[in-house]
C-alpha cells in the first residue's frame, strides 16, 4: 500500500528542459570537434613540429578556444564554463583510454609472439636469459602461483567471512572495532606484508622460503578484500529470513551456517574471486617469501617455488631480448588469468540479477 501512495503523490517526473539537445547545440559541438582536429592533422603532415609539442602547445589551446567560441554563440557567456569542463572531461577520458589501451595492447602484441604450448607447459630448468624461446616456459610458475593463491585462500577466506559474519550476524560489541581493523588492514602495503611474514616465519626458522610463506603473505593482502565484500553481501540477506529461522527455533550457529551463508552464496563467491584478483599479480611479498625457483616444486612446506609475478621480475631484470620476450609472455598469461577472474565476477553478478 505504501508504494501506491508514493507513486500517486511524488512520482511526477520533472521535465528538465535544459537537458534537451537542440540543433544549434549539435552544430556547435560538431564545429568544436572538427576544426581543431583538422587543423592538427594539417599541421602534423605539413610542418615538421614534433607531434607531442603540436598536441600540447597547439591542439589544446585551439580546442579550448573553438569550444569556447562555439558554446558562446550557442548559449552565451554561461556556456564558457561548460566548454572548459567538457574539454577537460573528454581529455581525461581519452588519456586514460590511451594509457589502458597501451598497457593491454603491448602485453597482448608482445606476449603473443612468446605464447605457445611449450611456453605454458614447460619449466625453467637449464634455461638461461638468452636461450631460444622454443625451450622452457612458465609452467612451473603457473602451478606455483596456483599453489600460493590456494594456500592464501584456505587461510584468508574463513577469516574474512568470519569477520563479516561477526559484523552482520553476531553484531557483538566490537563490530565497529572489527570493521575499523579490516579497513586499517586494507591499507597495508604489499611489501610490508612480505616483510612481516619474512620476519615472523623465515627469520625464526619455522619454514624456509616456501609456498606456505608466500601464501601467508598473500592471505594478509586478501583478507580485507574478502571481509569487506562479504560484509556487503551478507548485509543484503533480508532480515525476515533471519527472523524466520530464529522463530522456528534455530540456534545461532544454524541460522548463520544453514540459512544466511547459503542465501548469500553467489555473493560470497564473488568476494573470494575479488580477493584472488587482488593478490594474484603482487610481486613484492613473494620476492621476500617464496623467492624463486627454476624447477617445478609442489611441496608447499619446503624449498622456494616459482610464481608468475616473480618470473616476470626475474626475466625483466636480466634485460636480454629473449628474456624480455619471456617476461611479456608471462605477463600475457597473468593478464589472461586476471581477465578470467574479472569475467567470472561479472558473470556471477549477472546470473544473480537474472535470478531476481
Amino acid at each position, binding site marked *: 500500500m505504501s508504494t501506491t*501512495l508514493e507513486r500517486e503523490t511524488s512520482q511526477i517526473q520533472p521535465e528538465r528542459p*535544459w537537458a534537451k539537445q537542440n540543433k544549434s547545440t549539435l552544430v556547435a559541438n560538431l564545429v568544436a570537434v572538427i576544426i581543431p582536429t583538422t587543423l592538427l592533422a594539417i599541421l602534423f603532415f605539413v610542418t615538421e613540429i614534433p607531434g607531442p609539442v603540436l598536441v600540447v602547445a597547439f591542439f589544446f589551446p585551439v580546442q579550448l578556444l573553438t569550444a569556447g567560441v562555439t558554446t558562446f554563440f550557442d*548559449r552565451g557567456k*554561461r556556456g564558457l*564554463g*561548460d566548454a*572548459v*569542463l*567538457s574539454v577537460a572531461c573528454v581529455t581525461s*577520458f581519452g588519456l*586514460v*583510454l590511451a*594509457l589502458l589501451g*597501451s*598497457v*593491454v595492447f603491448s602485453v597482448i602484441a608482445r606476449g603473443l609472439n612468446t605464447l605457445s604450448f611449450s611456453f605454458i607447459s614447460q619449466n625453467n630448468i637449464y634455461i638461461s636469459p638468452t636461450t631460444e624461446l622454443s625451450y622452457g616456459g612458465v609452467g612451473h610458475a603457473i602451478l606455483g602461483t596456483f599453489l600460493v593463491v590456494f594456500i592464501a585462500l584456505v587461510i584468508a577466506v*574463513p577469516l574474512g567471512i*568470519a*569477520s563479516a*559474519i*561477526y*559484523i552482520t550476524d*553476531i*553484531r557483538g560489541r*566490537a563490530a565497529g*572495532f*572489527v570493521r575499523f*581493523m*579490516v*579497513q*586499517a*588492514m586494507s*591499507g*597495508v*602495503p*604489499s*611489501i*610490508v*606484508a612480505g*616483510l*612481516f611474514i619474512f*620476519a*615472523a616465519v623465515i*627469520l625464526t626458522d619455522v619454514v624456509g622460503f616456501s609456498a606456505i610463506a608466500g601464501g601467508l603473505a598473500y592471505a*594478509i593482502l586478501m*583478507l580485507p578484500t574478502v571481509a569487506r565484500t562479504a560484509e556487503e553481501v551478507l548485509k543484503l540477506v533480508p532480515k525476515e529470513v533471519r527472523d524466520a529461522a*530464529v*522463530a522456528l527455533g534455530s*540456534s*545461532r*550457529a544454524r541460522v548463520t551456517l544453514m540459512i544466511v551463508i547459503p542465501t548469500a552464496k553467489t555473493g560470497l563467491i564473488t568476494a573470494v574471486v575479488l580477493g584472488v584478483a587482488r593478490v594474484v*599479480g603482487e*610481486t613484492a611479498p613473494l620476492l621476500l617469501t617464496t623467492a624463486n625457483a627454476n624447477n617445478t616444486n609442489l611441496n608447499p612446506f619446503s624449498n622456494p617455488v616459482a610464481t608468475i609475478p616473480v618470473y*616476470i*621480475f626475474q626475466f*625483466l631484470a636480466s634485460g636480454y631480448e629473449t628474456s624480455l620476450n619471456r617476461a611479456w609472455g608471462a605477463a600475457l598469461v*597473468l*593478464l589472461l588469468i*586476471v581477465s578470467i*577472474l574479472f569475467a567470472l565476477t561479472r558473470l556471477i553478478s549477472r546470473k544473480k540479477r537474472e535470478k531476481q
Partner: protein
Amino acid sequence: MTVTSSTLETKSSYPEPRYFGREKSRTTSDKIFSGTVIVSALSSLFILTGILVYLSTNSLPIIIDQGISFITGSNWSNIEGEESFQIWPMLYGSLFNSIIALVIAVPISVFLALFIVFLAPKAISKVLVVIIDVLAAIPSGIIGLWGFLVFTPVAANWGELLNQYLGFIPVFANDQGQFARSPFIAGWILAIMIIPIITVVSREVLSQTPQELIDASRGLGGSLSGAIRMVALPYARGGIIGGVMLGLGRALGETIAVFFVLNLIFDVNYFEILIPEGGNIASMIVAKFGEATPNEINALLGAGLVLFIMTLIVNLIANVIVKRSTRERLS
C-alpha cells in the same frame, strides 16, 4: 490521521524480533560457533599487532643505534665496521613521487568522475566504469613491465621537451642529459595506479548529490559547470579528499612498478623531477634485500616499519574522512 508511507514500512506486523546476538548463547554448539567467529574476526587485530611487533623487535637495535638519523640521515652502508643505515632520501622520495602522482591523478580522476556522473551519455559512462575497473585490476608487475619497456621511452621524450621549453623553472631543470628513470616517470606510473581508486570514490560521492539541488541550480538558469562548481563539488568535497588520501596511501606503498622506472640514489633530490635520481622506501627494500647482511635485513625491516606506520596513518585519516562525509549525507 495521516498515514505516511514511512510509518507503514517501519511498523512490522509482528512483534519486534529479539536479537540473539546480544544475549548469552545457550547451547554448547552456539558457544563454540560464536567463539570461533569472534576469534577469527579479531584476526585483523592480531595481524596488525604482529606486523608492529615483529618489525619493531627486529629493527629496534638498529634504530636505537642510529638514533634519529635513521630517519633524517642519508647514508646507507653495509660494510662491516662502518655500518650506517639511514633512510631519509628514500622516505622523502616516497612522499615526493606520491605528490607528483597526486598532482597528475587528482584532476584526471575528478574530471573522469564528473564525466561519468554528469556529462557522458549512459552507454559511455557504463563503459567507462568498466574501463576503470579493468585499470584497477591490472597487476602492478605488468604496469612495471609496461612502464619500463613502453612508457619510459615515451615519457623520457616528454620530459626532454618539458626541460627544453620550461627548463628555466628549477623544477624542470636537468643538467644530466638523462631523462629516463626520473621521479617524473615514477609519478606518472603511480598516477596510473591510483586514478581508479580516486575515480571510484569520487564517483560514489558525486552520484549521491541530490538531483533536486542540481535541478534547482539548472532551473534558475545556471550552466552545468556552474551547478557542478556550486553544488556538486562542495557537496562531495569530503569524499573526494578521502579518496585522494586513499590514493596517497596506495602510492606510498607501491613497490615493483616504481622499482623498474626509478633510479634509487641515496642523496636527496628535493625538487628536480626530471633528473634520474629519486627514492622510494618500498623499492629500496626490494633492491637491497637480495644481498643484504643480517644487520642490513634488520634495517630494512625498520624501513618497512616506517612505511607501515606512514600508510596506516594516511589510510585511517582517509577512512575517517570518507565515512564522515557519507554519514552526513545519510542523516
